[in-house]
């Protein structure tokens, strides 16, 4: 109970914002804006999943989209070939992602910074090649279409609202795990390893064990996000789901909000996902302009606010609360 108390007390304002955000899609005027809200929740969850390992331990994984691909393919292939409900498929995808994370983590987590980053890219690329070439299993480069049959057991709905609730729930689950991690032994160990690996090991941190467990949790959560993504889009192809730009998107949102904080990715996604989607709409006349703007924003954040927006926001709220008293 003490830990639960800590989890909620520490970030009370953020929890209130997260909870209140569920109401937003209900007030949005049309499907376009509701779609933005859905993607905002989903990206917040995915980015927070990435942050759970890479943010706290400061070891960038640029291949996390591979886990998203695993989740997406597992659930939809099971559904298409054997009629297994995506809810179950999501769990199967999680198990496969955990296995893959154990395999890849076991071999690469002991590598030093740069090497680890490069090996995550290699892992994602190998998986992408595999998904593109094994045509019988994954449909190759053409991808897989999931036929639209609305219903709870198929995790598909006619309207946007059920999707938004689902994505919101996903985001909350990931956020809760991150907040739990922050005050758990594992979380402290991860942060210590990120600060100074040798020192942490000397103090008795089993670096392989704690990094591997966080990596697996992060991979499983990301694969869940992959399943939700495909159930919403109803289409997957290797070059888009597993692309490096997806991995970069996780990182972008997390660093904009604040890397290595539970709510950083959420703040990043709440601000950047709607802005970038709207920008894409308004700037559609010139291809690439919105990508340019996003890239420049990222560079500016890294140069001038390397801790992200969240710390700034927290100071703002603290001042606000003090004034109220």
């Amino acid at each position, binding site marked *: 109970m003490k830990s639960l108390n800590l989890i909620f007390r520490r970030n009370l304002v953020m929890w209130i914002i997260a909870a209140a955000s569920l109401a937003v899609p209900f007030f949005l005027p049309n499907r376009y804006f509701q779609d933005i809200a859905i993607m905002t929740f989903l990206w917040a969850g995915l980015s927070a999943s990435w942050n759970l390992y890479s943010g706290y331990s400061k070891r960038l994984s640029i291949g996390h989209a591979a886990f998203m691909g695993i989740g997406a393919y597992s659930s939809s292939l099971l559904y298409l070939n054997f009629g297994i409900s995506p809810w179950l498929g999501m769990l199967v995808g999680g198990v496969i992602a955990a296995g893959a994370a154990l395999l890849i983590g076991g071999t690469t987590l002991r590598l030093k910074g740069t090497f680890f980053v490069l090996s995550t890219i290699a892992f994602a*690329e190998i998986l992408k090649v595999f998904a593109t070439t094994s045509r019988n299993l994954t449909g190759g480069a053409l991808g897989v279409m999931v036929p639209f049959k609305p219903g709870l057991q198929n995790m598909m709905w006619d309207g946007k609202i059920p999707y938004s609730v689902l994505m919101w729930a996903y985001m909350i689950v990931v956020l809760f795990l991150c907040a739990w991690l922050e005050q758990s032994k594992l979380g402290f160990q991860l942060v210590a390893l990120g600060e100074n690996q040798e020192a942490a090991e000397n103090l008795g941190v089993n670096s392989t064990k704690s990094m591997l467990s966080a990596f697996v949790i992060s991979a499983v959560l990301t694969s869940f996000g992959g399943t939700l993504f495909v159930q919403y889009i109803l289409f997957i192809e290797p070059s888009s789901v597993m692309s490096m730009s997806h991995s970069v998107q996780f990182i972008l949102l997390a660093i904009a909000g604040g890397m290595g904080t539970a709510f950083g990715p959420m703040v990043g996604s709440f601000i950047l996902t709607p802005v970038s989607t709207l920008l894409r709409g308004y700037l559609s006349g010139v291809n690439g302009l919105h990508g340019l703007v996003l890239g420049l924003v990222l560079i500016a954040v890294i140069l001038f606010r390397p801790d992200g927006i969240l710390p700034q926001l927290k100071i703002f709220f603290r001042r606000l609360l003090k004034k109220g008293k």
Partner: protein
Amino acid sequence: MSGGIYALISVGLALIFGVVGLVNFAHGEFLMLAMYIAYWIYNKGGLDPYQSLPVNLIVMAVIGFLIFKLIMERVLDSDHSIQMLLTLALSMVLQNVALILWKADYRSIRIPMTNSSTNMGFLTLNTPRLLAFVIAIGASVLLYLYLQKTFTGAAMRAISQNGKAAQLMGINIKKTYMLAFVIGTVLVGLAGLLLSPIYPAFPLVGANFSTLAFIVVVLGGLSSVPGAIIGGLVIGVIESFAGYFAGAAYQQAAYFLLFILVLVFKPNGLFGKKA
């Protein structure tokens, strides 16, 4: 034959990593820029890539200098992960700039030489490929000699071995960093230029080559210039063999697999020094 180009791209990357300590994810985007510059000059001025070589390299040097001054200089002391994120963001910006300026179409340069071939007695080779190979290997070897024989070259090697000690010995560390970054950019620009008659330019062309360059560099021992040259040739050979025996689709899988194997069993690279 593509091994020569890979070597040239990787040499620049290895130099920047070895001296500046920067993992440059935007390296491939410099390649892309040079290809577009070659295309632009060819399209507007009618000069083929070999004639526009000096202009192209000067433009690349200026771009390298500006990017170093405006962006990279600010994060030299920051965390590795911050630097990587920054170059990642930079590559995103450059890709989108290319998309705005030149659209997503494939732009290729068709000069008479593209389809000509040179007979070398026992084998016949496509002329631009042969030229690319010879110039690329020549430039890489020149860089190696520069590092070995000149004072600034020695300064670069000193910094890559021990930055603090080098600074205490009176080496102007910022200037050397800048020089290394600019040389790396120019070298990858040269690679792009040599590539432009044989390979079309498109905004994402750099991405393919930069992942490859990373593999080469890891294979060669991350900061070692001769290692990068040999690594580039090795990858070129592996790629063609894998393409021949297992099919084009598995080319990439083959060298990524090799990459992971090297990382696991010989993390200092095939030719790297013991850490």
